[in-house]
């Protein structure tokens, strides 16, 4: 039974990672065309670091992902706490409206935000599409995701502990910082991770809301489509994949060290 379970999981992972393996394999392909093996080369990796367009797109992708997820976590967490404390009618209205972007097709979100910006530019006779419209849009679609990962955690929170803290003389903001925040931190982190992932993976919204001179990776890849995807992009993706895996390994290793430490401490206490 155990073996069957393992084989099953292995098959699902094979399904998820097969295309990525193909992608990495062909990043070493000397021929420019996909599916046609022309010998081993590291040429694309070398050229990648001399291509300002790709590097700039990478910078934009990462910085937008980082800032948008950070800012949307700030907004989302504060909003979630506010919403949580609301009374039911208003709460329901706010919640349902917040849920709309989750259900909206990307393309509608993208287009509607673009229309919004155009409208604002015309109205105030000021402004331009650019990095900040891109960032703002990413924040806009990330905030609801953060709210909905933090809210359930708040619900599971024991409401008495907050009051207990107040009774013991803590100011509300102190109690919030020292009691509530640590409790919901895992959910906030999940929200951050989710926002970061969505931002990195997004193409449609970025496409409609970025301005001249500001490309991110997905826009760049899409615009390459007319003349074929450059193998340099494969090389870049392989490197990104490697980074994520290394990161994952480090995080895991730290976890193992921590849990060992905890175990050791436990043992010591027992001896005493």
């Amino acid at each position, binding site marked *: 039974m155990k073996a069957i379970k393992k084989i099953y999981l292995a098959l699902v992972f094979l399904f998820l990672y097969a295309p990525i393996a193909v992608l990495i394999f062909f990043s070493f392909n000397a021929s420019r065309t996909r599916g046609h093996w022309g010998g081993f080369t590291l040429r694309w990796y070398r050229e990648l670091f001399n291509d300002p367009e790709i590097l700039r797109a990478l910078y934009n992708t990462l910085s937008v992902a980082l800032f948008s997820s950070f800012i949307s976590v700030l907004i989302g967490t504060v909003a979630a706490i506010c919403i949580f404390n609301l009374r039911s009618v208003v709460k329901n209205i706010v919640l349902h409206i917040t849920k709309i972007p989750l259900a909206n097709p990307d393309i509608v979100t993208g287009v509607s935000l673009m*229309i919004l910006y155009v409208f604002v530019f015309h109205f105030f006779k000021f402004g331009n599409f650019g990095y900040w419209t891109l960032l703002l849009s990413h924040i806009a679609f990330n905030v609801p995701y953060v709210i909905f990962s933090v809210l*359930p955690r708040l619900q599971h929170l024991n409401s008495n502990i907050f009051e207990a803290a107040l009774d013991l003389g803590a100011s509300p903001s102190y109690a919030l910082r020292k009691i509530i925040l640590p409790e919901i931190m895992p959910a906030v982190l999940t929200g951050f991770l989710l926002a970061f992932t969505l931002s990195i993976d997004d193409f449609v919204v970025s496409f409609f809301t970025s301005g001249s001179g500001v490309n991110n990776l997905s826009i760049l890849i899409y615009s390459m489509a007319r003349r074929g995807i450059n193998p340099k992009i494969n090389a870049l993706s392989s490197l990104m994949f490697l980074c994520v895996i290394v990161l994952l390994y480090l995080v895991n290793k730290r976890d193992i060290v921590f849990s060992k430490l905890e175990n050791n401490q436990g043992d010591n206490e027992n001896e005493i």
Partner: protein
Amino acid sequence: MKKVFLYSYILWMIIFIVIPIILVGYFAFTQSENGVVFFTLENFRRVFEFVYIKVLLRSINLALICTLICFLIGYPVAYIMADKNFHFSSTLLFLFLVPMWMNMLLRTYAWLTILEKNGIINSCLALLGFSKINLLYTNQTIVLGMVYNFLPFMILPIHTSLKKINYSAIEAAQDLGADSFTTFRKIIFPLSLPAVCSGITMVFMPAVTTFIVPNLLGGGKFMLIGNLIEQQFLRIADWHFGCAVSLILMAVIFFAAIIFSFVDTDDEGGNLF
């Protein structure tokens, strides 16, 4: 002080959620001719023409199949990983997220290399002495691409909810003589049902709207509703009709969401991860 935060969020919500939708509605209910904008229902009448209904139905059909397959594949995965004796579940869970950090266009594109006539699968078949089969550019390929892209959305919420199940409930059932299948049917599955519902909505929504997957893996042969919208905005710049189709699509999705929210007993429904 608290009020300030609340009102600023509500303002944010109005600017970035409510107003954009009103703008979409404005375009959907108007037409412009030579710079003159006037109210009309013509766009919606067009959506209900036979061709567009056919496109809409095909999208819903494929998205439903995709959702079902995601459930059938995803539930056992989540179940296995939620087992107390299973050691690597957090690592594996993360491994489900990793592919999403690589560009979706590229990942989907890579499937071509695997499936095409001289691709990896067919080359293997040829080596084994079988004849080549046509794997690419069918409705099934589109479903495969959708499942590939959206499977994690099914696994993650179910996994989270299975992890949260109080183990004593299961033990109690076993003590009372229930075999493992009955325990699953009567205890575990009902408890994970809300998560299943949020998984279903989270897979169904992107599946019904995608336009990249049918373009790449469907060989552009079968138009889905996402392609239709994309075409209106990007190819022929008919925003009025595009917005009308978008509104109809939103209606379909909300309808689906409402159906599932009846089963969804969890107050907030959105336990994504």
